[in-house]
């Protein structure tokens, strides 16, 4: 029974939102639900953050492998929470926005989080290289096509592309790699994008229907 109620809620809310699109008076419904979602998300964090604490505290107490690092995480977490909630070291005091210029909270962001995340992001450069080294192999026809397309674009965006095909007469300028790159970008590329997008659209529609009708209920539990 408990689960029947849940399924009814899904059915009702889902249908309501679909219908609301066609009924102007219900237009604002979407915004309302987004607001609700934001609020629920914060409440949920008490579970998430709580779990974070739990996991690391157990690691600590059980002296599991790498328990030392758990201390770091715990300290970092709690310190930021305290600073942020009581707005310590914030020139504007408790009234100011937590991320006010020069506040301890913002300094922490600039000096700790920014370098960390931008470095993690920068690792991408390495992985892009290793991936292209390994994955761009003319294994089969599909892979070959991918390789060629990638290679043309790749060259097209560097000076070499120009150098390589500068000898091509302007009458055949389309064959100059930079132009070729541009051409690929807005012909075949476009077609592929569209096919994928239409497919995704249908996938979402059909999945939403399954969920609203309660056929897809894994997220609520498969009580057989």
């Amino acid at each position: 029974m408990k689960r029947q109620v849940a399924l009814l809620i899904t059915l009702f809310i889902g249908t309501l939102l679909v219908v609301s699109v066609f009924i102007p008076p219900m237009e604002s419904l979407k915004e309302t639900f987004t607001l609700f979602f934001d609020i629920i998300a914060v409440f949920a964090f008490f579970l998430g953050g709580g779990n974070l604490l739990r996991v690391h505290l157990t690691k600590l107490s059980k002296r599991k492998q790498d328990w030392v690092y758990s201390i770091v995480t715990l300290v970092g977490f709690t310190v930021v929470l305290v600073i942020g909630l009581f707005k310590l070291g914030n020139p504007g005091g408790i009234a100011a926005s937590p991320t006010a210029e020069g506040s301890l909270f913002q300094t922490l962001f600039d000096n700790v989080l920014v370098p960390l995340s931008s470095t993690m992001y920068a690792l991408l450069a390495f992985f892009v290289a290793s991936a292209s080294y390994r994955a761009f192999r003319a294994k089969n026809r599909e892979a070959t096509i991918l390789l060629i397309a990638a290679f043309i674009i790749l060259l097209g965006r560097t000076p070499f592309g120009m150098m390589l095909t500068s000898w091509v007469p302007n009458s055949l300028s389309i064959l100059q790699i930079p132009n070729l790159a541009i051409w690929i970008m807005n012909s075949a590329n476009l077609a592929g994008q569209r096919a994928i997008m239409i497919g995704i659209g249908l996938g979402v529609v059909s999945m939403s229907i399954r969920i609203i009708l309660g056929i897809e209920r894994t997220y609520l539990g498969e009580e057989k």
Partner: protein
Amino acid sequence: MKKEFLVYIGILILAIILYFFVTEPVTFSPTVSLIIIGLIGLALVLIFVRTIMGKLVGRRTVFSFVAISVVVPFFMTVEQPIQTSPEVQSLYQAVLDLKPGSKVLVSFDYDPPSAPELQPMAETFFSLCLERDLRIIIMGLWPQGPQQAEMALQKVMDEPAIASKNYRYGIDYVNLGFQVGNEFVIQRMGDDISSMFQTDYYGTPYDSLPLMRNITNFSNIDFSFNLSAGYPGTVEWVQVAVDRYGVDLGAGNTAVQAPQMYPYLRAGQLKGLLGGLNGAAEFEKAAGRIGKGTKFMVSQSFSHVIVIAFIIIGNAAFFLGERRRKEEVVE
């Protein structure tokens, strides 16, 4: 475990030495640079041979090559042959044609992630303006823009050639700071700049800035330059400032965004365009100045060559009948 900590200590010592004792910027002489390039090339050839002999290199090798290809050029004095493309040349020319004392409006519409590409452009542009005694008015449509401007300006101001001219804030240059509102801001500025910037970046009232006193709107601006990494950016400046108020506009864009600007260039709505690091480097060349753009450009081209080289090597290996993935992964 022990070994690792020895390595860390080594790195720390190295860092301390480099930080405290090596105070002068390091640069390799052309010969050394050439030798290094030669060595890298040789290493690549070796890898190629090994691969053909069936010994695939691991990811760490690839990583180290990428790292080297990015870092080494920082210290090299070799410039790769850069030919300044028309759109860059025309921007340079546009600045040259300005009489000393003309007022230039520079809008910083980007944030730190795009700095590697756009910061060098900003520095070159500032130095160019200051060498030619142009008055600079800085603003930003992105919150972190003015900050970036400050950094660039400081860097240029410290250069002896500029420092000797001892320009004064408020008279020779101002930073109006960030204003929220996207293209709306540009539109209002066409009417009345002070209505959008009651105070400058430091909170000084608009009217007490000598430079701004007789500037009411775009009609008092002789040239305008925009560094953009997205929305709001060059597109908005063209559509409002250029199309509506006939401002002379030049722009610097990230490599990803630049291609969309060429239509405006052809239509003459943009006086000039710098696209990505290439653009920055070419601009520095035109301005006869070796800045980060040129260095970074070399780094970028290097890393691109490396990636392309490894793709070729990878395929060579494949065609010589390496199929299974296990050998490739973890050495």
